[in-house]
């Protein structure tokens, strides 16, 4: 998967990463992978909230919300998260250079 769109959420308080193409994220396996790595995770059935450097929400449709308004931090967390998950899933995730923009929807 590729996170080709990373943008500020509608409230302007976090960054939202949208996968392309769309994917169905296996939240159970994502939770296992994160917890195995020592990351605190809240399982809300339809989403996970992971306590990384900042709080991150992972939805079943692959959307990832990162609670920061700093695009550099958002990109760093996204890369870290994708790296953690791809190790367990074999999913390639990339953030194209410059994909993180600060334009509010």
């Amino acid at each position, binding site marked *: 998967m590729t996170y080709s769109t990373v943008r500020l959420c509608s409230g302007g308080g976090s960054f939202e990463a949208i996968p392309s193409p769309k994917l169905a994220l296996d939240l159970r396996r994502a939770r296992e992978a994160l917890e195995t790595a020592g990351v605190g995770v809240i399982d809300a059935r*339809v*989403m996970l909230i992971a306590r990384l450097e900042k709080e991150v929400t992972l939805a079943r449709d692959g959307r990832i919300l990162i609670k920061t308004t700093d695009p550099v931090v958002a990109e760093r967390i996204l890369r870290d998260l994708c790296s953690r998950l791809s190790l367990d899933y074999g999913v390639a995730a990339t953030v194209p250079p410059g994909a993180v923009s600060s334009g509010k929807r």
Partner: protein
Amino acid sequence: MKGVMLMSGGIDSPVSLYYLLRQGHEMIGVHMDNRPFTDDSPLEKVVDHLVLLRERFHQPIPLYVLPHGPTQLTLMRSTDRHVGCVMCRRFMWRSAARIGEREGARFLATGEALGQVASQTLANMRSATVAVDLPIVRPLVGLDKQEIERVAKEIGTYGISTRPGVCCQAVPDKPATRSTILQIQAEESPLDVEAIVDDVVRRAVVM
């Protein structure tokens, strides 16, 4: 009269509170703290709204902050997501009503206006509010968003409300707009409603 105002940190609730304070009512604020399904910003905004309105009306306006995240988590794990907003609202109303009973309030109030968002259709507002007995006052119900924003700017709360923040992540992709009371009661039936509300109110913090 004494009333309890549900305050979200958004544009509407401080305007609604303003109208009630202007009429001379003695108001108490209740904020349902939705973390981790949002961030710190809603609580910070509510606190700042109240600083402004306390000063303007020379009223103490105590603020009860109630933990809503655990309730939200229970609802997300156990109930149909399509009616998630209505279920969420029912627990907010119940919690606010408990605070109202404790404080001797005669009414509850919100910044709701008819039809602005999914939880504010007539059907959903009815499904949400049958959960409580205290009368509910909606000073903004007949106003449109532009009118509410104009007042918010006049009283100085608009700039606070529109600061960046994380929107509620518990809102489902396709929220139901026409829930029925029977449907909601069926969803709620496996839950120990009283225990949930007891726990929320027990952990209230007054600011």
